[in-house]
């Protein structure tokens, strides 16, 4: 079990590294979908081994919503917003972002060992923490709103991984509520993107330095 968890965490981190250096938004969304299916597979395995029906249901829900439905909605929106297909001006270069990603993994390990490990006693528990921090880094290092949304969902995936393995038994209704909320947020996100495209007529749409009303 421990080995499978470590392997899942490792794959998810590698996929996140790929998202970090990728500039084509479509590829990032597809990578997120793959990472969600991997997470779903892990939950399925966990559910079978522990004979927990809740984990089986959560696995199915993760695959359906995070693996398929949400990436589908995002790709559908992206097809209409052709100018969003590529992150034209990332805030930092590929080499820098990968270096920071590696440092984040090391930092997460140190952070986990010096804080949570004392209570949880699961050696590989730093993997979800690293994933969470990486997700937040993906959000702040990119201007593209689709990639920011993916970063947010990576953070949530990390928590699902964390709770699924370390604290199994979290009431299913909570997990289902989380997923329903996520669907709502993504739908609103897609709608906002749609409207933004119609509202913004010229210039670089992901740059908002000149919005006077939001200063102060």
């Amino acid at each position, binding site marked *: 079990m421990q080995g499978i968890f470590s392997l899942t965490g490792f794959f998810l981190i590698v996929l996140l590294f790929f998202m970090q250096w990728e500039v084509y938004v479509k590829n990032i969304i597809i990578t997120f979908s793959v990472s969600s299916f991997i997470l779903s597979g892990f939950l399925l395995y966990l559910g079978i081994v522990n004979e927990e029906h809740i984990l089986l249901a959560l696995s199915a829900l993760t695959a359906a919503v995070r693996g398929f439905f949400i990436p589908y909605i995002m790709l559908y929106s992206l097809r209409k917003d052709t100018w969003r297909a590529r992150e034209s001006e990332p805030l930092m270069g590929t080499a820098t972002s990968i270096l920071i990603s590696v440092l984040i993994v090391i930092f997460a390990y140190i952070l986990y060992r010096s804080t949570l490990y004392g209570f949880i006693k699961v050696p590989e528990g730093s993997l979800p923490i690293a994933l969470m921090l990486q997700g937040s880094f993906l959000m702040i290092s990119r201007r593209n709103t689709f990639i920011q949304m993916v970063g947010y969902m990576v953070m949530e995936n990390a928590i699902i991984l964390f709770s699924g393995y370390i604290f199994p038994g979290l009431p299913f209704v909570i997990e289902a509520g989380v997923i329903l909320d996520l669907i709502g*947020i993504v739908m609103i996100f897609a709608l906002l993107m749609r409207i933004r495209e119609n509202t913004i007529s010229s210039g670089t749409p992901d740059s908002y330095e000149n919005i006077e009303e939001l200063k102060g």
Partner: protein
Amino acid sequence: MTVYVLPIIISAAGALLSVVPVLYFEETVSVAASSLSLLASIWILFMPGFNGTFLFIDGLSKLMLVMISAVYLTAVVFSITYLKYIENPLFRKKIYFLLLNLFAFTMLLSVSVNNLGWIWVGIEATTVTSALLVAVENDETALEASWRYIIVVSIGLVISLLSVVLIYGASKNLLLSSLFLSHNPDNLRLLTLGVLMGIIGYGTKAGIFPMHTWLPDVHGKAPAPISAVFSAVLLPVALYAVERLMQIAPFLIIKNFTLILGILTVVTASILIGVQKRYKRMFAYSSMENMGMVLIGLSLGGYGFAGAVVLMISHAFAKSGVFFLSGNLLSRYKTTLTSGINDVVKQMPVTGYGLLFGSMSVTGLPPFGSFFGELMVIYALIKNYGIIIAGVVAVFLILAFISLNYHVGRMLFSESGNPALKKMEQGRTAIIMPVINIILSFGVVFFIPQIISILQR
């Protein structure tokens, strides 16, 4: 249990019925739903507390239900008039009322449920239901404000979700009523860590420093009735979650952490109020300052807790009134710049004087309820931490008071230099609702003993 779910069910029904394709049906049904929701909440106020599998209704929940329902009703009524002044709305009126009713539903749900996980789901759902309402004005700034809101608040709520997981890990339970009673002594540190993370996460939604960055953008750009609901009840709903976490783990480290966050929030907001050029952003920072004071009160317990609740209720009425009035100003003067507003008392006398009293109320001037709330918090602060810390907080409260009332006074009384300007007062509904709310913020004073009694029951 039937009575206790009424406000939740009524608001949900109001949301569903809002989309019925009959002319003006959405307005009628929203007014009916919000009125019935308020009546049901008042009824619950006189009922004994309730502790079931799904619901947990104590004194705090009862007061929150009344506060949310009252602001919900006034916001619905005010919206009917205000929507006419939005030139290019993002969506139809039916969708607006659907979302507004759903927004109220999620808040009412959050303060009624007996499960920490469900509180999280409810508060996260407030983001889903309110994000589009922020962007009603349908311009680039509104959309950007809405986007920032979703991103910043969602990250905060991810931290709260982690907190829920950690608390579950420590207690193997998420029922509030059980968590209040017992803790596993082996996992107290994990529980403490979970609660601290929850305070940061929900603090983001409450506009607590340093996670407050979304707050002025959203309050400044959302339409007036939505800003009113955000400021008056959404921020307190997030603080309600913080209070529940503190009740679960009433440890000194958590109280101190919350106190520090509260003080930093008051200090930051008080400084930022003075440098604002736009009046809605200024009122947003004033909300942040009040939430800081509420957080300080919650961290202190006893008189501080009672003061925090009194302040929260008085602020809810006053600030919703102030935001309604700021909507009147915007619809007439067509600017959010403070420097663009002059001579309001002559041109819009009811709005002008309403704003004057509203500003006094939100900055804690006697005899408004917020003054007594702040006084109780300061008293508890002196009692627990001595005069120096209380003095620092009081200095920044005074700074906020001077800054906000200076700007408001300048807008109300400075001469426009144009004697030909005619009276610009809004229609009756647009001035009656804010005036009622500001009067209610004063009326809270007469109910302070009852509020304390309800909290103690």
